[in-house]
């Protein structure tokens, strides 16, 4: 197994991504992610300090919408898709932790 990513890092990343992995999955993912990162070594080692990043292929700027109200959609159509709706709102289990 490669040392490019550790089991602990995989567990940490899974927590960030809100995924739960069983012990076997952690092993498999550690190995598979390591393989992909191994391949990415070709760019990791590249000297591109003076190259600017490209986040987007299009050179567009300043695309704006005019501030005019458009009809909202019927909440019944949306709430009908909710796993649990109550009082025209989306019901969720208690939210622990702090508000952002």
């Amino acid at each position, binding site marked *: 197994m490669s040392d490019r990513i550790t089991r602990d890092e995989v567990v940490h990343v899974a*927590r*960030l991504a*809100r995924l739960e992995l069983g012990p076997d999955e952690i092993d498999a993912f550690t190995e598979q992610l390591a393989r992909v990162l191994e391949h990415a070594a070709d760019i990791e080692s590249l000297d591109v300090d003076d190259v600017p990043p490209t*986040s*987007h292929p*299009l050179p*567009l*700027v*300043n*695309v*704006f*919408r*005019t*501030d*005019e*109200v*458009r*009809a*909202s*959609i019927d*909440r019944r159509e*949306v*709430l009908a898709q909710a796993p649990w709706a*109550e*009082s*025209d*709102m*989306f*019901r*969720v*289990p*208690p*939210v*622990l*932790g*702090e*508000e*952002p």
Partner: protein
Amino acid sequence: MSWSIEPTLPEGWELVVGLEVHVELSTATKLFCGCANRFGSEPNTNICPVCLGLPGSLPVINGTAVKYAMQLGRALLCDVKPAVMARKNYFYPDMPKDYQTTQYEQPTNSDGEVVLPDGFTVGIERAHIEEDTGKSTHIGGGGRINEAIYSLVDYNRAGVPLIEIVSRPCLDTIDHAKAYVSGLRDILLAIGVSDARMEEGSMRVDANVSVRPVGSDELRTRCELKNINSIRSMARAIEYEARRQIDLYTSGERPRQETRHWDEAAGRSTPGRSKENLDDYRFFQEPDLVPLVPTAEEIAAIDAAMPALPAARRAALVEASSADADVVATLVERGQDALALAAIGRGADADKVVTRLRHDLAVDDFSKVSAESFAALIVMETSGDLTATQAKQVLAELVDSGGDPRSIAAERGFEAMHDDELADLVDRLIADNPDEWQRFVGGHEGDRKKMQGFFIGQIMRATKGQADGRAVADLLAQRGRSPANGSPGT
């Protein structure tokens, strides 16, 4: 502006406060969709695929929101620069995409300042554009988030345009923090980009508080205070937090960097529960939006259309009147600085202008008082054509119905009552009322006061209120001291 008494911290400690102020922009629609930006609607009625973050939906940014942001940036004396939107990734049920679209490395506005009435300058690190979250109602557990049985989410507020104004950690007193928040609100109202109502949540303040020994310039561990819903609540929360931290240091402990929840009713803050969200927001450029690149012409147009802002208005009035900073601040807050400057410009005495405005125009609506009539009134008063009492009466009528102060004075039969006329009247009254006069010159403090009232009342009756009470009091005092009448108290 009312100045509370700054709470004193234990000797040897000083405050270091930075404020993060979130302001909802008063656009017609949300930041990325055409849903109404409206407070108080039925739950989940201002929603669409975009602000609900439904799969496949895409944002298109509201041009007016971006313009408002730049206006605010210029008002805060920021550099307004090309900006890119970014995603801040964390899970929260109020946030439909489970990331917040915001600005990170390249915000629209950076490096500004706000000058407070006393001249203290608050550095602004950045003022960036971002979207608001929805709102949860916590059911059970007294509505507290950590004790609720479940929560109900309403996404009407999700996607409402916000500006987050981040100050540098430079606020050194609670009064400065309060003055800064008031100052921001004044600026927001002046340029009209937000209604800035803390009670409705359209202006929200988080405070980063730390303390340090006086004279040190270190930045110690800070705590972030949330759930502050008024300026008063902010002041209490900061003071509580500062004392809490000082207590920790003096007992040999150290504060932990944490977010704390202010409980206004209990008058204390409590630490947030252990975090479900780890602090790794994985910011990256928002690929669904393109960069915002303001042109020089746009910025010039914003500057040209910028109304005079409170700090500049205060400076202009100080320059014209030499009045004290707090008096000037009051007049600017009441919006009377333009009237003052116009009257002074028309030759009215600056001191008298400021005095009359400060004491006799403390009213909500003074729109009928024109600069011309106000200046004429002050000139009449300072030239002795009107007594102070008469001037106040004319001013009251100007407030009610406007008009020309000369005709008002003439209608009321206010004639110039010059000093020698008043002196004659006073002498006559003294002669007519010897007993009262003796009680005035020879009595105790209480008697003297009572008799002063008697004489002023008599004069007022005789002059139908046209005499200046203060001038009468001065004359009485002067007569009382003169040897002919015997010095009181000798």
